[in-house]
């Protein structure tokens, strides 16, 4: 299975080098990649149908519990087949849709990378590798959505999608780590056994919210749904692939996977049902106001995702089976409708449903596919859509409380979805053909065969629902539900309440379709409400955040050295001040202090005078001379207090500095009084308080006992080990010899710099 996951990545890598061959007629060959994977996964069908689960494990970072472990059960197989199956058709379709596009190879590269990431996601048994693949889908979908990168709209949508799903990814990481820590394992199959530990844990609620955040952002649940309609800027094959079968189903997949681990508490059901119900109704109502075919499909996709979340929230066996079947139904009809929309767009150049009509006369096979797709979407017998819809009603009707209310919501959504399906799949082909479309002709079979194949599959599965039952529904139910009950999928259940509800749905949907026509003024009317829509609110939030960051940065990054220094000093003053005064006790042991003689006092007075003169004099020469006095006083001080080496170094260095200063002094600018008195006082206060704090700090430290261990080591070993009697010298040239060598190189670099600056001639600038 590792090979199957890697194949897509390898293929996209291969395209980097061999891409130019795949731009032309060979492009269609790239669909062999998903097709071979599809066949490979088909071979597992019999085993999985028997209820087997296949594991594979490759160690990756075992110390962190991150491994590439894969599992293939009913759920994973359903998604794997959907990803590779729809993938094959999309790959085929793209070769005609983007024929002779100059970046076709790049497109295939992104697409196969995305496919591989999706496969990795659904096959991962390790929650960390699941997270990695999850992020990979976000990243590769960013490239796909922004494929037309010369359009500003496209780039913006790609960024929005990446932003929303990226936040979800972070939440998933948080949830995964918590889950792994609580369960003591990062393998999902082992977490199922730890179910009680996890649901009883105090982190349970947090885990739940993190996982929900990840799933809701990825699967475009209210209020994170707005990235999905935006992502419609992508080329149609991308919308088809991402929104019907893969990307947006990843969140649903995650919820499905987590069902046997997390669904212990009431809150799991409540949140999922509420969010799912709000999403499905909210976006189903939005369908009425759309005139762009892709817009209609986008909102019906969100609504379908809402239904799935809602069903997982109900969480009974019937609901989970209904969700599994509905995933297949939705993939089949939504992918077909997207592909059909792509054909219409490709041929007529418009997706505005108010302008399209009568296309059946020129695009007959497409019209057939569209009609069947609408039937599946509307749940009309004998399609699989009918089976799916009945299962949904059955699940809501048998939910313990609020059965009636939930059923009504489901019916309302279903009616609107029926309407959406027919507007997208049937309306463009009915009525009179406008003159401007008369010269259209049927595109390459590569484009109209894929939707036809998928819709026909929808009918075949509808007539023989047993296929779906043995292949997916039962294995999924067996692994996801604790107490498995035998069940059978049927097209015909006999006359019962569910059938009645179905009939009501279809009738009302048909009435809605025939009475309500998509109009632009409806679309404009709802646009006025955009101000309070989550999309605009989020955009405003991000703009506000950017504005805040700008203000914040401008406040601190003024570009004036003194502001930076003042900020640092002020911060240190506050910090040190707090530390010193929060525990203030100053007791000085006068007996331990060194005594004071007249020599020292005179030196210190000299030093003090030198410092003050340096600061306050108005003459540069005087300042430099005073600095020299300071240095020489230091030299004497070192001499008194047993540091002859320091005294010598300080003496020579200080002499050199003063000489250097004086040499270049006449080339230096004159002192100018640049700041006003207020600023001077402010800076004075700042520096004096810092000086006082340093003094207090020293006095405090002097009270602490001193650690002499290292000094004693040097005192004992300076002669025995290094044969030197002056310990300071021994430390510098022997014990820390390499440090000194590096110090010398620093000096060399400084000397080179000085030399360079003196000799450098900037020809153009100097002459200015």
């Amino acid at each position: 299975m590792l090979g199957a996951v890697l194949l897509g990545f390898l293929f996209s890598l291969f395209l980097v080098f061999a891409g130019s061959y795949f731009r032309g007629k060979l492009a269609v060959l790239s669909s062999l990649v998903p097709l071979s994977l599809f066949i490979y996964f088909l071979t597992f069908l019999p085993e999985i149908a028997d209820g087997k689960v296949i594991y594979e494990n490759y160690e990756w970072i075992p110390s962190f519990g991150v491994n590439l472990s894969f599992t293939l059960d009913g759920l994973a197989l359903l998604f794997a087949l959907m990803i590779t199956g729809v993938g094959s058709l999309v790959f085929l379709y793209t070769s005609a849709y983007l024929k002779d596009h100059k970046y076709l190879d790049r497109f295939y590269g992104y697409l196969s990378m995305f496919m591989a990431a999706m496969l990795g996601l659904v096959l991962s048994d390790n929650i960390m590798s699941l997270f990695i693949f999850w992020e990979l889908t976000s990243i590769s979908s960013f490239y796909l959505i922004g494929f037309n990168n010369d359009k500003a709209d496209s780039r913006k949508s790609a960024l929005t999608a990446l932003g929303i799903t990226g936040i979800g990814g972070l939440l998933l990481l948080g949830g995964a780590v918590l889950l792994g820590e609580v369960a003591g394992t990062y393998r999902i199959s082992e977490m199922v056994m730890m179910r009680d530990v996890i649901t009883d844990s105090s982190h349970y609620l947090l885990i739940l919210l993190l996982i929900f955040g990840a799933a809701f952002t990825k699967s475009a649940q209210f209020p994170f749904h707005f990235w999905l309609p935006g992502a419609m800027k992508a080329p149609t094959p991308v919308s088809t692939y991402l929104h019907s079968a893969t990307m947006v189903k990843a969140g649903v997949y995650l919820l499905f996977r987590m069902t046997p681990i997390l669904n212990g508490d009431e809150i799991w059901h409540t949140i999922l049902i509420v969010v799912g119900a709000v999403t499905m109704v909210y976006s189903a109502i939005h369908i009425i106001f759309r005139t762009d075919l892709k817009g209609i499909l986008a909102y019906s996709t969100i609504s379908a995702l809402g239904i799935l979340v809602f069903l997982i929230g109900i969480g009974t066996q019937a609901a989970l089976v209904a969700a599994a079947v509905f995933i297949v139904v939705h993939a089949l009809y939504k992918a077909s409708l997207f592909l059909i929309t792509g054909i219409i767009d490709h041929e007529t150049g418009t997706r505005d449903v108010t302008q399209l009509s009568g296309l059946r006369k020129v695009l007959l096979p497409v019209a057939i596919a569209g009609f069947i797709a609408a039937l599946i979407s509307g749940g009309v017998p004998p399609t699989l859509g009918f089976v799916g819809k009945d299962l949904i009603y059955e699940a809501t009707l048998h939910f313990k409380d609020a059965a009636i209310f939930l059923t009504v919501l489901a019916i309302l959504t279903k009616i609107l979805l029926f309407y959406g399906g027919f507007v997208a799949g049937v309306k463009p082909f009915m009525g009179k053909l406008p003159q401007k479309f008369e010269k259209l002709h049927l595109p390459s079979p590569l484009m109209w065969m894929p939707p036809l194949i998928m819709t026909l599959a929808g009918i075949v599965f509808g007539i023989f629902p047993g296929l779906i039952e043995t292949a997916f529904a039962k294995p999924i139910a067996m692994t996801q539900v604790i107490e498995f009950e035998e069940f059978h999928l049927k097209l015909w259940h006999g006359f019962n309440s569910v059938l009645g509800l179905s009939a009501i749905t279809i009738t009302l949907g048909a009435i809605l379709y025939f009475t309500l026509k998509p109009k632009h003024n409806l679309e404009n009317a709802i646009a006025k409400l955009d101000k309070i829509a989550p999309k605009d609110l989020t955009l405003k939030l991000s703009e506000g955040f950017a504005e805040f960051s700008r203000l914040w940065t401008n406040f601190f990054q003024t570009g004036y050295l003194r502001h930076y220094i003042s900020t640092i000093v002020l911060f240190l003053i506050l910090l040190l001040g707090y530390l010193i005064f929060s525990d203030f006790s100053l007791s000085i042991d006068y007996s331990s202090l060194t005594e004071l003689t007249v020599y020292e006092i005179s030196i210190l007075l000299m030093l003090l005078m030198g410092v003050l003169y340096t600061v306050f004099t108005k003459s540069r020469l005087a300042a430099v001379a005073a600095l020299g006095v300071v240095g020489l006083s230091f030299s004497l001080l070192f001499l008194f207090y047993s540091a002859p080496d320091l005294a010598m170094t300080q003496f020579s260095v200080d002499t050199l500095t003063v000489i250097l200063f004086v040499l270049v002094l006449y080339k230096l600018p004159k002192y100018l009084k640049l700041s006003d008195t207020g600023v001077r006082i402010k800076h004075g206060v700042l520096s004096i308080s810092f000086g006082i704090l340093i003094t207090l700090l020293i006095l405090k430290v002097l009270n602490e006992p001193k650690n002499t261990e290292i000094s004693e080591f040097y005192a004992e070993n300076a002669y025995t080990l290094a044969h030197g009697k002056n310990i300071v010298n021994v430390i510098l040239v022997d014990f820390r010899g390499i440090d000194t060598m590096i110090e010398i190189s620093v000096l060399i670099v400084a000397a080179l710099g000085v030399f360079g600056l003196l000799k450098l001639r900037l020809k153009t600038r100097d002459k200015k």
Partner: protein
Amino acid sequence: MEIILAIITGVLYASGIYMILRRSMVKLILGIILLGNGVNLLIFLLGRITKGEPPIIDSAKKVLEGVYADPIPQALILTAIVISFGLQAFAIILVKRTYKVLKTDDLDQLNTTDEDS
């Protein structure tokens, strides 16, 4: 003595920072030198000062015994003095060069990379 030296260190710090906060580049360098001296004195002081007992082994002995000044702060300060000399020399020449090219000593006029401003 320690108390007075601690106060002197404070004075050095205060005057160093005050000079660094000026807009004139020459004062900036003077400030850096003063602050450097302050730091050296701080290290020296925290290593405890000892009068007239340099850390040098008597010619007749092999091991340093009795009361002696701590050699480690001295080694540290020696390094610091030498390095700060490198820094000072470079800074002085840099300021000279900057003034020659840009004809200004005001740091406030040097905070942009645009040539024409």
